[in-house]
């Protein structure tokens, strides 16, 4: 049985795709057979972040509509061989993701994969609903900022009332809070909500804190999931999050202002 995990947020541009890419890569690197599915029909981006945009032949909607098999559509990652990507369709309507179609694909993926990571589109409409519908767990990506926190609470409400688990009266999906684009300096100056504030408002267990980092942009420019930048702060923060997802205890890092040491000042950005 696969663990089906949705990466969701309500709000756009908070780091869902960045997170989906890194979490799936991290799980696969630890030897788990992992597939990351792009639910953002019409705004495909995961392929760029995973550096496989030129290898897309068939997509999720092709599989749903029987125009291609899953094996034809899945793209094997060039860096981590237990990792596969199922790209979103760039040309179809979001409604092409039917409940039955998505269920069929998820069931088929469940037969061979240990982890299915669903990268949700923004919003609370059909696409976002489909991404979370079959989830056993949800990673709620939140920026320490008012509209992101409010939207996260909204999507949590939808998860609790409109997912398959909710409709079938099963145990609710397990929720994880991932605070991203965190800037401890601004928190210290009282300009940004702290992790504790966000945790208190949303009341969801904390999976991790990803600092605001230039490395994320650099990595995405190159089509590299930032978790593979193993010496970077954001990369290590994602690695911690993956470890916690697998039940390991890891102390929270990157939550306080780092006093720059001699070496990191010399090799700027380290």
């Amino acid at each position, binding site marked *: 049985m696969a663990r089906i995990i949705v990466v969701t947020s309500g709000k756009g541009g908070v780091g869902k795709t960045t997170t989906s890419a890194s979490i799936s890569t991290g799980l696969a690197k630890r030897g788990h057979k992992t597939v990351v599915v792009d639910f953002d029909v019409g705004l495909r981006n995961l392929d760029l972040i995973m550096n496989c945009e030129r290898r897309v032949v068939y997509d999720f909607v092709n599989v749903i509509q029987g125009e291609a098999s899953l094996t034809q559509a899945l793209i094997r990652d060039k860096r981590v061989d237990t990792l596969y990507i199922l790209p979103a369709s760039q040309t179809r309507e979001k409604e092409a993701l039917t409940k039955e179609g998505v269920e069929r694909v998820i069931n088929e993926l469940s037969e061979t994969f240990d982890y299915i990571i669903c990268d949700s589109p923004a919003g609370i409409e059909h696409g976002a609903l489909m991404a979370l519908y079959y989830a056993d767990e949800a990673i709620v990506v939140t920026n320490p900022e008012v509209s992101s926190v*409010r939207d996260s609470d909204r999507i949590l409400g939808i998860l609790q009332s409109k997912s398959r688990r909710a409709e079938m009266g099963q145990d609710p999906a397990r929720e994880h809070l991932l605070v991203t684009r965190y800037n401890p300096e601004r928190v210290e100056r009282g300009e940004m909500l702290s992790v504790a504030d966000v945790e208190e408002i949303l009341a969801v267990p904390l999976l991790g804190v990803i600092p605001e980092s230039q490395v994320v942009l650099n990595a995405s420019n190159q089509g590299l999931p930032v978790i593979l930048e193993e010496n970077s702060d954001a990369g290590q923060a994602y690695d911690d999050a993956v470890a916690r997802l697998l039940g390991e205890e890891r102390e929270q890092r990157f939550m306080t202002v780092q006093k720059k040491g001699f070496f990191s000042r010399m090799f700027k950005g380290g």
Partner: protein
Amino acid sequence: MSFLDYFRGKKSGSSASVAKERLQIIVAHERGQREQPDYLPQLQQELLAVIRKYVQISDDMVQVEVDRNESCSVLELNVTLPER
């Protein structure tokens, strides 16, 4: 403001603490709304229509809420009449 906040030099008037307060209020409000039954907006509209047969009131002068307790639910109806 907690002792620790004070220690860190975080003022209770900082923009982050304003954000936190506003969020706590709106999130609590929206959670309350979420737990309301689906028929509530319709019920509110129909009640409004009935009351308007007798008194001219605006939309926001009728508040309908369901309070769920362990043992029972209470339908709470609040109608503000215009000043005479």
